[in-house]
């Protein structure tokens, strides 16, 4: 094992545009994000926030009509992924960066057993010792509480959602990747299965010394497993910092609104408040000014013209004009 | 002006629809080319016999003449202009093709919908009927029929081909219906107590429109091949002016396969068939976008 270390990732000024009939629209607009080595980072956002595009960018796998039009993604031991092409890129995916697709998606081939697919993966990455690969896979599956031999002999339809998700994690890790990206790892899974998968993600992360990125729309999932949390909105990272801090004392009005919109099991039900308006889509992201201003209770004149740049507040980064200024107390009560 | 008129008019999908069709067609030049080709043949079918009133002039001095300005595709064994023959032959081919398509699609869609929507006993009976239709050997049956029937009218031709060809569409429409009827909006329509007529006519059919339209156009091409083939084989008596008859005469009468003289006579109807099929295929490409409001409105 040569690269048995957890790599750090630095995304800088990343811009991804999608070609549409009305011209190229930015899905990501100058995103900056750092994943510290050995941590679990969560990206939360609604549909259209650009979170999945960002995750795909880590593998330089944005599909047409989208393309990375600027910026860089530096991964330790790999260099700038944006500049990788052809075979180098293909080897990096799987070898260094493992990707776990959504549980709901059928990312497994229904016509081949899991074991066959594993061997295909090994061959396409020129693994010399295939029996060792199988052993490693069985060990990983066993670690996740499954009967490795049985699972490798199974077809996709013979596995439950939670089992499929574990197979996905195994396939992402079996080539000894140390950067793992999980896209909506628990969407469409039941509560108890979700809890199991999240526990496994945490344990495997720790035992194998990984750098993990989890993309999800569910703040609860992110809260449960992540060390650091990035909140995305309209193609920007609007707030990023240690998970406990971001959730405990959110500073961006969107983060605040989002947390407030979660119904909870204890406390006053009336405290949960819906966020007004709706998230922007690719076509409705404003060309200038803050992307959140239409729904923002703290909106000021400057928000209409200037897109707030992310500013550091201790360990936290927040992109908002109103943060750091005295809060305008004339704000409607329910948003404070 | 009354109060009700003051309310903003509800959407008028009809007007939007044709504007949308135009928009979809303009998206690709190939589609416009397809429309132009189909329009050209439609024009020939409608006005061909007016342009070349029968009987077509013969020129006894120019049998199997080579292409020239006077005869762009040469002349046939009697010295008749080949272009005139192709143009006047269009009507029969198109009419028979259309009749076939209308009958296949009407029968196929009706039976498929009924079977898929009601399931149960209806389904069993109708699908056995469909299987029966699919097992009828078309060509031998036509050979037998042609001994008693002259097929002078293209509509007769169309009816026979149509009745022999609806099975495939019925099966396809049934399976589409089976999958659509499980969709939320069909279930909701039933839960709201809407009539079966409404559900089938207004909810199911429009969802299948691209599919049906596509099948209809493909049925037209299929029918053209079939009838031209029948005439070419000489199975049917030569009562009508038809591209297939031309092909037959060029090959078996003019020896087009061995001598160059009759070649233009052979190629002209072939070219017409090819061009018409190409036109239809190019138009089929647009069907999905025309009937899907999402793709149409963009």
């Amino acid at each position: 094992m040569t690269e048995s270390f957890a790599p750090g990732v630095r995304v800088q000024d990343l811009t991804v545009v999608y070609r549409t009939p009305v011209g190229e629209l930015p899905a990501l607009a100058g995103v900056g994000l750092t994943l510290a080595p050995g941590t679990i980072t969560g990206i939360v956002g609604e549909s259209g926030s650009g979170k999945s595009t960002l995750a795909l960018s880590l593998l330089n796998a944005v599909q047409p009509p989208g393309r990375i039009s600027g910026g860089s993604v530096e991964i330790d031991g790999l260099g700038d992924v944006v500049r990788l092409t052809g075979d180098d890129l293909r080897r990096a995916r799987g070898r260094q960066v493992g990707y776990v697709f959504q549980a709901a998606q059928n990312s497994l081939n229904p016509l081949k057993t899991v074991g066959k697919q594993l061997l295909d993966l090994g061959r396409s990455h020129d693994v010399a010792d295939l029996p060792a690969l199988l052993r490693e896979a069985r060990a990983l599956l066993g670690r996740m509480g499954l009967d490795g031999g049985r699972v490798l002999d199974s077809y996709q339809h013979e596995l439950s959602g939670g089992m499929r998700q574990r197979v996905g994690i195994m396939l992402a890790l079996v080539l000894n990747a140390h950067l793992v990206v999980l896209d909506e790892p628990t969407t469409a899974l039941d509560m108890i299965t979700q809890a199991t998968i999240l526990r496994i993600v945490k344990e495997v992360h720790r035992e194998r010394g990984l750098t993990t990125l989890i993309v999800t729309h569910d703040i609860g999932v992110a809260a449960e497993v992540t060390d650091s949390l990035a909140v995305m909105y309209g193609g920007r990272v609007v707030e990023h910092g240690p998970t406990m801090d971001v959730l405990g004392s959110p500073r961006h009005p969107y983060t605040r609104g989002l947390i407030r919109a979660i119904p909870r099991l204890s406390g006053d039900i009336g405290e949960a408040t819906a966020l007004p308006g709706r998230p922007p889509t690719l076509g409705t992201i404003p060309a200038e000014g803050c992307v959140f201003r239409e729904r923002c209770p703290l909106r000021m004149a400057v928000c209409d013209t200037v897109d707030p740049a992310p500013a550091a507040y201790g360990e936290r980064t927040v992109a908002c004009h109103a943060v750091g200024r005295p809060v305008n107390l004339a704000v409607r009560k329910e948003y404070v | 002006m009354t109060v009700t008129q003051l309310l903003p008019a509800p959407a008028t999908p009809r007007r939007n629809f044709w504007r949308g069709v135009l928009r979809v067609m303009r998206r690709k030049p190939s589609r416009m080319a397809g429309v132009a080709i189909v329009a050209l043949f439609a024009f020939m079918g409608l006005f061909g016999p007016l342009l070349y009133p029968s009987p077509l002039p013969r020129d006894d001095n120019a049998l199997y003449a080579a292409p020239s300005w006077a005869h762009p595709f040469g002349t046939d064994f009697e010295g008749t202009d080949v272009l005139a023959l192709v143009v006047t032959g269009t009507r029969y081919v198109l009419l028979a093709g259309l009749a076939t398509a209308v009958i296949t699609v009407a029968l196929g869609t009706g039976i498929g919908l009924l079977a898929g929507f009601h399931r149960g006993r209806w389904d069993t009976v109708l699908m056995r009927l469909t299987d029966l239709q699919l097992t009828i050997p078309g060509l031998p049956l036509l050979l037998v029929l042609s001994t008693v029937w002259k097929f002078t009218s293209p509509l007769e031709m169309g009816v026979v081909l149509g009745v022999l060809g609806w099975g495939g569409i019925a099966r396809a429409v049934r399976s589409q219906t089976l999958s659509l009827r499980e969709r939320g909006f069909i279930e909701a329509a039933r839960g709201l107590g809407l009539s079966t007529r409404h559900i089938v006519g207004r909810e199911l059919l429009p969802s299948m429109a691209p599919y049906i339209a596509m099948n209809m156009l493909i049925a037209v091409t299929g029918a053209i091949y079939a009838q031209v083939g029948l005439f070419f084989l000489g199975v049917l008596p030569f009562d009508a002016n038809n591209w297939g008859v031309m092909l037959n005469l060029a090959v078996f009468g003019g020896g087009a396969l061995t001598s160059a003289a009759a070649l233009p006579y052979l190629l002209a109807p072939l070219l017409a068939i090819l061009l018409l099929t190409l036109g239809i295929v190019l138009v089929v490409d647009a069907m999905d976008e025309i009937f899907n409001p999402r793709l149409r409105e963009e």
Partner: protein
Amino acid sequence: MITGTGVTKTYRQRGNLLGGRDVQALRGVDFAIEKGGAVTFIGESGCGKTTLGRIVAGLETYDSGEIVIDGTPMSGLRHRQRQAHFRRVQLIHQDPYSALNPTRTIHQTLHAPLALRARQKGRSKAWAEERARELLTLVGIDPGYVLPRYPHQLSGGMRQRVVIARALTVDPEVLVADESVSMIDVSLRLGILALLKDLRERLNVSVLFITHDIATARYIGDDGELYVIYRGQVVERGPTEAVISEPVHPYTQALLSAIPVLRGVERPGAERVVPTEALDERHADTGCLFARRCPFRTERCESERPSLEGTVHGHACYHPQPRAVIPVEASA
């Protein structure tokens, strides 16, 4: 008011040559939905909650037992009459994308049931038009904007509101909401839940809420009833707030323990329960259905099946014991 007693449903899986396996989706379920009340069925997927919701909405048949709608038992009725009764119950689908016909504008979608309604009530066409606008306003969207549009031009939240408006065209007594917010953006979910809550108060419709997310159930109706369903059996039932704050069945406790904790805002409960195994439908049906996965099982659990006991807050367990499983506020 709708009541069900001993409702059972078995799916026969016609499988291969070796014969199929029967799946008991519902094993004798009793329930009652009061007028204007809020009832929630929770459980894992495949537990039968969706089947039960569809039976209540008249979209699925049941094998035995009885459903009574406003005093009329359904089993004696002919199909057509039964459908008329079940029209009082409208299902809000999980997926607002497939619940609206993509080829029809919202105006056409709402107009069809309203025109039918107008004919039945002897009202004019103008009434139907007016009513469509009224309903859209009621569910919180601008009729002028929505009516001429196709579903694909609306956001998920708007579509779900249109679906609710369509259900309201027949003046239903019960709205069955089956995972109705799971496919909607997080910031918009609460709006839909608040709408359902609001409809309860303003129109006095009851809401039957089917979900695996207990927190949303609590938001819809803390004054309502919660049914915890496991493999086709109600294992715990009671006032929503009581079941959440003092769950006694280990399965309910496992479900509640599995809810992610909002760290920084909440602390995990002190006695979280984790099942010893994953759900496996092939587990034997003898004894308590949850026994194989239960950390507290005894010999008795494996041989005898407990039935639902208790009047207000009932449970089907031989060893009921309240445990502190739900997350608590961190500041407390």
